[in-house]
């Protein structure tokens, strides 16, 4: 594939050249960075560690219509539409890696047309991390500040210029549409230096060896309570997780117009699993905390052969009560498994 570059102050032109694409990029409202459709290229913010809300919302929006109907009628109108090709500009390698993990779930047995439609129609232009944040541990989860997994092109911020390395045909096509200049060895070298620097800045790590196998044996272990006792049962860790994919389905009516929609939901809410009878299989925060961690690090890999975590550090950064997933996993390794009860 190709090597390209563009001058940073030409960003608006580069984005503007993408007439055939719907371009999404990180934009800031105050200090909050989130991926939005680009209307004005000057709003694009590239010097951030990780967006507050992960770009999973581009493939799996907070709320989306599944189908519409007239109440009392018998016609159902599906809301799957083929969107204009999308280009996600400046996505972090960890978030792109997360897509590849969630893909497995959404393609399991029944392909999910809503997710897949957006996924197939998207070109991902990643931006390598130059300044990983304090709680990043992507290198432990099969990614890295310049990981190419799941991306169509990877960009490196070299100060004045941006070096673009295309990785797929889709990416190359988009790079050509942007009208980029060819890059040479100087840029490649500089990019390598950026990656090396970034790697050195990643301070946190985790050896995942043995965790998926061990977690189920800690089902009744009291160590969960050290964490669940201070859990607020809020949705921050899961809503902001790029691999969390759970949702709720609700019917909504406005006059005679109705729709069935799905919206993000989280296993941390107590009402998530509660039965109509009032029985709740996960009645306390202990079960819910255990389920979140076990699902990511044990159940998901058991089913799909990959840990549902990319090490973006969001759940650590935003947890209001400092429930640190690395801390939990380290403690889980130390926890002694009691012999099965006789």
């Amino acid at each position, binding site marked *: 594939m190709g090597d390209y570059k563009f001058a940073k102050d030409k960003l608006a032109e580069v984005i503007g050249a993408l007439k055939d694409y719907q371009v999404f990029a990180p934009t800031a409202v105050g200090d909050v960075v989130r991926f939005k459709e680009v209307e004005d290229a000057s709003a694009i913010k590239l010097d951030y560690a990780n967006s507050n809300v992960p770009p999973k919302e581009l493939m799996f929006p907070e709320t989306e219509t599944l189908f519409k109907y007239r109440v009392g009628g018998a016609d159902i109108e599906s809301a799957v539409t083929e969107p204009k090709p999308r280009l996600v500009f400046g996505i972090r390698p960890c978030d792109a890696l997360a897509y590849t993990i969630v893909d497995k779930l959404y393609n399991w047995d029944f392909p999910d047309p809503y997710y897949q439609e957006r996924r197939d129609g998207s070109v991902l232009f990643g931006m390598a991390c130059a300044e990983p944040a304090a709680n990043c541990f992507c290198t432990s989860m099969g990614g890295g500040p310049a990981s190419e997994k799941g991306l169509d092109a990877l960009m490196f911020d070299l100060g004045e210029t941006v070096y673009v390395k295309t990785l797929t045909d889709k990416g190359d096509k988009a790079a050509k549409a942007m009208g980029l200049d060819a890059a040479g060895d100087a840029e490649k070298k500089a990019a390598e230096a950026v990656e090396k620097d970034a790697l050195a800045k990643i301070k946190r790590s985790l050896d995942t060896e043995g965790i998926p196998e061990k977690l189920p044996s800690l089902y009744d272990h009291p160590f969960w309570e050290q964490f669940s006792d201070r859990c607020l049962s809020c949705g921050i860790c899961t809503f902001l997780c790029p691999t969390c994919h759970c949702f709720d389905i609700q019917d909504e009516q406005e006059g005679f117009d109705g729709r069935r929609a799905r919206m993000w939901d989280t296993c941390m809410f107590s009402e998530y699993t509660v039965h109509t009878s009032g029985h709740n299989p996960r009645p*306390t925060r202990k079960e819910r905390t255990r389920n979140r961690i076990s699902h990511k690090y044990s159940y998901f890999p058991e089913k799909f052969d990959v840990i549902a975590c990319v090490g973006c550090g969001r759940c650590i950064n935003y947890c209001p009560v400092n429930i640190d997933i690395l801390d939990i996993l380290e403690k889980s390794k130390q926890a002694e498994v009691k012999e099965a009860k006789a």
Partner: protein
Amino acid sequence: MVDENKLREKAKEVIARDDVRRLIGWKRGTYGFESAPIVLTDASEVDQLIFDPTCVQNPASFVSLEEKLPVPRGQEPDTRKVAVLVKGCDSRAIVQQLVEKAYDRDKIVVLGVPCTGVVDRRKAQKMFGVTSAPVEIKEEGDKYVLTIDGETKEAPKKELVADKCLRCRFPNPLVYDELVWDEVAKWADDDFADVDEFEKMSPEEKWKFWDEQFSKCIRCYSCRNVCPMCYCVECVVQKLKPQWTRRSTDISENSVYHIQRAWHLSGRCIECGECERVCPVDIPITKLNRKMTRDVMAMFEYEPGVDVEAEPLLACYNPQDPEEYIM
């Protein structure tokens, strides 16, 4: 003044009591300017307890967060007390919970820790960045001395301290069984100038402001769950029968959620500022609550979380209440 050894000793004494089941306090976090709430059940764990300007969390929230499971047949319910460490602002939550009869006074042991202000993590991170090692902060006069990755740094207190502390009227706990150390002098007052400033805006400007803020909301409900006053078993926003707000996130439902929240906290909010602190998308939630607090004071001469003997604001009335807008 702050003396962690004293705190641990006192805590050890309390948790060792036969009639105390658990003790809620603070411990050092795992990185940066974080501290974490901790629930102790055994005297051997008290060494983890700390108190310094990173201890922002309100331990009173965790009293009501504990789920009450049905007691298995043949077993007696555990009626032992819960001990809780509280700063001045946190203690108001205890007072208000007692006013609302959330539990009986003799079910809790309150250890008061007079406080001279806590650090706003956002401000500190802007100034010093985030480190993966936990930071220690000591207060020395009007400046903070921070130990960041082994290096000692200083910053003026007023630049790092949380906004709520800049207008703190209750640095000393209002309800306690014991104070861990001596009371501190009050250093600030609250003139609600920020509310006045906001009110100068026209309805259009106000809505423009809130439209932008509420649009960001992802409805993670952390503001609700962290709130010591939001202890309903089933929250009105998640009810399906009747359904007050839909679960979809859009400006309409988000606004109604925030209006409901502010409404249910009017005359109850004790201004610990936790809701705003925890918000992952920086919605200035206390702007709503402070407006209600100010108006409740002005209209009904009522302040929540101050007097254990008071009646809840909306469960009482005064025949002479204002009615200037009523036709």
